[in-house]
């Protein structure tokens, strides 16, 4: 101890002369830093109510609730996160994991309120004074808790695939599938969007777990055409996927296919289970496409006797006779059909209702009849000289290719139409040309510009890679025929607009911009319609119609109590919609024939 130790403490007195360091008015003079994790903000327009914030919140501070003015719609649950500041710890994991980037934080940290319930609020909906704060925590760039990029699907390259009808897409390996499945946040928005409401997050979870048998069981609970949909589904789910907002959507379709690829077909029956005990009721189904066969699958499992009448030599409808083999190999489709048949569904092939058996006969012999005849007839453009024999409908040609029926393969073909059917026929012809003539000469002409084609972007990209020429904004005006009566080309005018101000089809053209597309064959792929002549005059007269389609109620039932209708012929061309329709009518038919109603109807 020294004299210094006695005097030195008195140096503290110098602080008397220093300015105080205290902030005089901290409520106003001290804003939070730029990154401050303060009160929440939510961009209500951007938010899709996926609930990932709720899932990650370890405090249980977030509840997803419906809010006024926000409706449930495709890709948006309509719910919004309500945050309870009695529980929140401002860790910002909700901001980090937000799938759309809608949830952020302000740098505001002072909020005085006399009502404790006010601290449970819905950011972005309940107006707050920090809603327009510019600073505050936002998820830093590259800081992601969920992978944004999809696992690339390996495909056959264009030079190889053009040589055959072999399947283009290879399918995921187990490792790839697990990686892809890992990206899913299991929000379930896809379930609401899927027409048949498949348990998508659950079967993706089965992929993660490697429990493929559970996955298959889940698939078949809602979709007996899982082999088909795993390959060619229009995948509405992916366009609603939460992951698409800040990255690529989960490859839901390929994961479905992955489950299918992993489970041996012999095991399907065991996994799916046996049908219920026979009920003694009989149902006739006309058309063995996805809608008819789905209804057959459901009804036969409920214990009813199901007889399917199919005009063609094999089942599958458009999935077999419309979709080319390189997209949907026949053996995949066969597996779905075989499974349904193995449950006890009787299918009469090459049997045409109307000519072979009358509708009246079916009405008499069965408790209920389902009409699932699809859209089998191709629409015609009816442009001048299109009645020439070398002008085909795409569906007819696709049918011939599947049935291996001979036709004169064009050396040079022009397709009219910009949808998936146009791409299907163009790419099929290209393959056959490559095999027979060793060169591809197919032109696709469509009225829309390429950005607005109805066809999937993948289809267009792959068609171009395969050497198909696509000419957009071309309105067909007539076929060109030479003196000897040979088809030599298609004349088109440049399209200026397609729809009028009332959104009705009323194209306008620039007739000075004319193109003659040289060809020896023209193929029309502008849509299909249903041939309902099988109904017979009397029934056609009795039924109620709506714009050329049979009028049905929300369960698919027609104005005749014994007759239902489902699939493309009532809801337009789409496999997964047809499957959903099949389930709907099956359930309606079941409740009708299980009640006494059907027997009363029969007696009367």
């Amino acid at each position, binding site marked *: 101890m020294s004299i210094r130790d006695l005097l030195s403490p008195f140096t503290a007195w110098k602080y008397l002369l220093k300015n105080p360091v205290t902030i005089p008015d901290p409520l106003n003079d001290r804003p939070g830093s730029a990154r401050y*994790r303060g009160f929440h903000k939510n961009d209500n327009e951007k938010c899709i109510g996926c609930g990932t914030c709720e899932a990650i919140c370890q405090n249980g501070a977030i509840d997803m609730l419906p809010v006024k003015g926000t409706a449930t719609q495709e890709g948006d649950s309509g719910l919004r996160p309500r945050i309870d500041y009695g529980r929140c*710890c401002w860790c910002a994991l909700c901001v980090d994991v937000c799938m759309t980037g809608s949830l952020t934080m302000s740098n505001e940290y002072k909020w005085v309120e006399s009502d404790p319930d006010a601290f449970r609020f819905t950011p972005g909906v309940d107006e707050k004074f920090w809603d327009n704060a510019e600073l505050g925590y936002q998820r830093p760039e590259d800081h992601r808790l969920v992978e944004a990029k999809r696992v690339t699907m390996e495909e056959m390259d264009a030079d190889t695939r053009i040589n055959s009808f072999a399947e283009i897409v290879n399918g995921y390996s187990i490792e790839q599938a697990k990686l892809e499945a890992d990206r899913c*946040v299991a929000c379930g928005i896809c379930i609401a969007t899927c027409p048949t409401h498949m348990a998508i997050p659950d079967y993706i979870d089965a992929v993660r777990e490697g429990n493929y048998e559970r996955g298959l069981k889940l698939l078949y609970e809602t979709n007996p055409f899982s082999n088909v949909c795993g390959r060619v589904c229009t995948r509405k789910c992916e366009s609603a996927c939460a992951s698409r907002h800040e990255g690529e959507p989960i490859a839901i379709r390929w994961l479905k296919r992955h489950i299918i690829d992993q489970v041996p077909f012999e095991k399907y029956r065991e996994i799916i289970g046996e049908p219920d005990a026979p009920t003694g009721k009989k149902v006739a189904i006309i058309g063995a496409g996805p809608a008819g066969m789905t209804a057959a699958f459901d009804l036969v499992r409920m214990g009813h006797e199901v007889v399917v009448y199919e005009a063609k030599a094999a089942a599958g409808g458009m999935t077999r006779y419309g979709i080319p083999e390189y997209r949907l190999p026949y053996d995949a489709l066969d597996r779905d059909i075989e499974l349904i048949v193995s449950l006890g569904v009787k299918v009469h092939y090459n049997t045409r209702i109307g000519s072979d058996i009358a509708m009246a006969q079916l009405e008499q012999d069965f408790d209920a009849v389902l009409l699932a005849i699809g859209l089998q007839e191709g629409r015609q453009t009816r442009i001048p000289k299109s009645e020439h024999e070398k002008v085909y409908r795409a569906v007819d040609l696709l049918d011939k290719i599947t049935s291996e029926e001979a036709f004169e393969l064009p050396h040079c073909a022009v397709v009219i139409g910009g949808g998936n059917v146009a791409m299907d026929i163009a790419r099929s012809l290209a393959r056959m040309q490559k095999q027979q003539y060793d060169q591809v000469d197919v032109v696709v002409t469509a009225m829309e510009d390429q950005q607005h084609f109805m066809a999937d972007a993948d289809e267009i990209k792959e068609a171009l890679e395969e050497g198909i020429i696509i000419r957009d904004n071309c309105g067909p005006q007539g076929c060109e025929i030479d003196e000897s009566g040979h088809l030599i080309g298609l004349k088109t005018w440049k399209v200026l607009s397609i729809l009028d101000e009332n959104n009705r089809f009323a194209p306008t053209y620039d007739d000075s911009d004319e193109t003659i597309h040289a060809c020896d064959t023209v193929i029309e792929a502008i849509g299909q319609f249903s041939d309902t002549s099988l109904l017979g005059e009397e029934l056609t007269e009795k039924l109620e119609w709506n714009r050329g389609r049979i009028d049905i109620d929300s369960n698919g039932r027609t104005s005749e109590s014994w007759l239902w209708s489902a699939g493309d012929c009532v809801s337009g061309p789409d496999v997964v919609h047809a499957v959903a329709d099949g389930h709907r009518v099956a359930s309606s038919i079941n409740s009708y024939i299980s009640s006494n109603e059907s027997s009363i109807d029969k007696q009367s």
Partner: protein
Amino acid sequence: MAYQPDRSQYPQPGADGKLDIDLTSGKYLKLWQGPQHPGITGNMAVELTVCGDEVVEGKVHVGYLHRGFEKLMERRTFIQCFPIVCRICVPEPDFNEYCYAAAVEELAGIEIPEQARWIRALILEMGRINSFLMYCGGQAGSYGMGVISQWTTYVRDLMLDRFEELTGARIYHMFILPGGVRDTLPEGFAQRMEETLREIEITMKDVYETMYCNAVFKKRTVGLGVIDPELLDSYGVTGPNARAAGVAKDVRKDQPYLIYPELDFEPILGQDSDIYTRADLRRQDILQSVDLVRQILAKMPKEGPVMSKLPNVLHWKIPRGETYIRGECSRGEYGYYLVTDGSGFPRRVNVRGPSYTHAMSLLERMIVNINIADVAGLMVSLHTYPPEIER
């Protein structure tokens, strides 16, 4: 008065091992220091038995802060544990974040980016400075020098400002998460940090003059609360408490982690192992950490990623395994023992906070024979934070 090895003059243990203290004799008095008492470090209590003003027995009581973190974590996914762990030690939360993140990374096989390793070390050193500043105020306060704690609180607040602009929060930073850190340094951070460091140096100089060169403080602390170096291992004493006894225990040197091998520093040692030595050692530690922060800011990479790719955290499963991750916090060895069983939740988490050994077993031993008035000073000199005793 230090602990007397000759116990013949003191109450003897009875058959049940407890001291034979006859409270009806009038010789002894039970005295509670805490749980509400200005001379206690946080929410804990010491039950003192005094004879005159000399303590003959001290029992430490904890449990006032028990929130069951370790158990809570068994019911949370790996990412959900991340916002919880910082709460285990309020004044220096970052070691929890670091140890937990490092344990998860080791078991999940994740390598973190270089820049993240530097930023982690930066945060840990910033936290160390803050923890020591808080200690200085407390130690001074326990000897009636309240003004020192006001000075250190001011500079600690400046450091909290730096924490706020770097991490987005002042106390619970929640910045070091499995996979790296949330973000890079903000624009102009090094400059503002330098200003803060200078302010700390100036304040510490004043603290030195008024507290360390203070006859009263010296008189009351020199020679008091001596930890016998032979007790260190048997009582699990680490950190400054051990280094003040001349034993170089520093995890940063013994088992280097993060980027510490690339920094130039030597553990500061003391000799006398009394309260004054420990206090002075911590003062020097603040200055050393100030230097380390400068070194880190000068040497760290200024670009590159700060976060590794994680699997989808919502269903993150970690293979079966166990690990123990340690780090040198301001009070000694901080460790996380993590067991995983292949599921999405930790099977077991055990937190080793240095306060458990220092505030419970060691304090009970050291408190015997000292004066009631010195209990608070002794307790603070062991630098304990009760929340980490009861995880």
